């Protein structure tokens, strides 16, 4: 990892360490199911932002294995169904600007990827990574959930967040990252990409004098810079036609850097391996978490 990236992550951890998480948990009677309870979770992240997460906890005695589903680059992170909810705690944390975490900042899509990018202090995506770390930490500290071993999953930006958290937290048991966003890597700055990465090129086209700032202020987030630190096994899926999140060459480099990586390459684009990979991922995670 570069010195600058090291400093970024160290400072991010320090900012989080100084702030109490202030977790509030509220059972959602409407969305709770006969087999599991659904909770609305709120907690504090960097800069005092209050964040929201959906949390589901199976009925019965814990501890339960847990799955943290990091949010993709979208305005919503809802209560996505997974059959694992019947046997595992599932947390869907949001990042700042997403719905229900938007009291201070209402993210725009497209738009968030370059929000405040001219200055590292104001670039929102650097704080989005802090939000991901915070989400993971509050889950581990949550008594209600009785959390056992934890896997992190995510697609697109969520894939990059999952890998970043796994690089910082050795307690992560397994990671399943689909088409992780190349934000921070030079591959993300190429012209002609699809959205969401194309937002960066849009910005540099309109503000050509800020190209260096874009490169500099995103660089610390490059998944390649932290990949070698991941101790958990990683299931990584990429699509050969993906130009909006995880260009193939970037995905292959990423797989090389991750010490224990199972790379699956599919004939997809942003959807990566689609249904086929979803089945593989479910089976892989169940195995890693001892869910049978």
């Amino acid at each position: 990892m570069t010195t600058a990236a090291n400093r970024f992550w160290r400072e991010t951890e320090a900012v989080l360490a100084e702030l109490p998480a202030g977790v509030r948990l509220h059972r959602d009677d409407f969305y709770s199911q006969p087999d599991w309870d659904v909770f609305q979770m709120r907690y504090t992240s960097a800069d005092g932002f209050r964040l929201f997460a959906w949390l589901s906890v199976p009925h019965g005695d814990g501890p339960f294995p847990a799955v943290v589903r990091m949010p993709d680059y979208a305005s919503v992170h809802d209560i996505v169904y997974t059959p694992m909810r019947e046997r595992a705690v599932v947390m869907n944390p949001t990042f700042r600007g997403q719905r229900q975490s938007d009291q201070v900042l209402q993210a725009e899509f497209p738009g968030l990827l370059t929000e405040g990018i001219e200055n590292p202090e104001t670039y929102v995506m650097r704080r989005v990574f802090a939000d991901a770390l915070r989400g993971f930490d509050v889950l581990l500290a949550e008594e209600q959930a009785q959390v056992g071993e934890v896997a992190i999953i995510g697609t697109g930006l969520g894939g990059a967040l999952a890998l970043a958290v796994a690089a910082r937290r050795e307690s992560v048991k397994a990671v399943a990252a689909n088409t992780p966003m190349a934000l921070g890597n030079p591959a993300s700055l190429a012209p002609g990409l699809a959205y969401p990465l194309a937002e960066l090129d849009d910005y540099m086209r309109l503000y050509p004098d800020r190209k260096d700032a874009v490169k500099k202020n995103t660089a610390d987030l490059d998944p390649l810079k932290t990949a070698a630190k991941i101790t958990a096994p990683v299931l990584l899926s990429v699509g050969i036609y993906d130009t909006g999140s995880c260009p193939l060459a970037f995905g292959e480099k990423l797989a090389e850097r991750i010490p224990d990586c199972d790379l699956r390459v599919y004939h997809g684009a942003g959807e990566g391996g689609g249904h086929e990979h979803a089945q593989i991922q479910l089976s892989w995670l169940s195995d890693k978490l001892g869910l049978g």
Partner: protein
Amino acid sequence: MATEQDLQDFTTQVTCPDDFDDFWAVTLEMLSAISLKPVVSAEPLRSNDDVHVFNVTYLSLGGLEISAWYSLPAQGNGPFPAVINFPGYKSEPPVRRDWAKKGVAVLSVAVRGKLKSNSEFNPGYPGLLTSGLESKETYGYRGVISDCVRGVDFLRSRPEIDPGRIFACGTSQGGGLTLITSALRPEIKAGVSGYPFLCCYPESMAMFRSYPYDELACYARAYPDQEEQMLETLRYFDAVNFAPRIKCPMVVGIALEDEVCPPETSYAAYQALTGNKELWLFPNSGHGNAHEYPGQERAWLESQIELSAGGS
């Protein structure tokens, strides 16, 4: 996984209310009484040498201001053929520069509740599917569908658009809205409906435990005395009841492994179509992730656009 036989064996319990057409005629009449008041503003950040992108606003049911991304070819003054793109349930409308680069105008509608159109109506996600279910008059989707209809009206009002060459597409909720809007606005010349949502509500909420349909199951569990009324309201918003009213050619794409929108229910909408229709089945794909779908959608719409050249 659903099989083709499962699709064919499926029968929905959804029936069409006697006053279905009257209800929608009244709604369209209400819409026509509201001035469109379109505002088109350049979006330099999203524009490039090939495509000019604009943010559009127009007024819809209840006087709500609705936003949309409007992408126009940078070359030429038109009139251009146009595609109206309807959004999914959770996703924000995309900026579609790909088609505009090829000479087709694209309007990508942010229906009420989406980030760009939520100042007065913001039920959230989850939440939209159960918002105002107490009656057909108050149901949130009455407004959402109106917003799509008004998008077609916006395109028809534009001098740079060929009003005889307007096409529609969308996936998931956008697929359902493609069917519904095509029934309400015969000016749409052809459409592609992928993995359509908003079909066969009673069966869809019972078949899977995935969202968004599970919002309806949660509602029924929380308010058991209101389930009957909920299902009555939903009859007026079921794409299966709109399908026979569609006159233009229509494609329905179905993923047989779809765990969000049951394939059987999408097939019921396809079956209910009475005009020219085409079925695309994707055996090894789930909701929204058939690798072949985007290419097929693009090719089919391009062929329809080409067919319509000189015929309007």
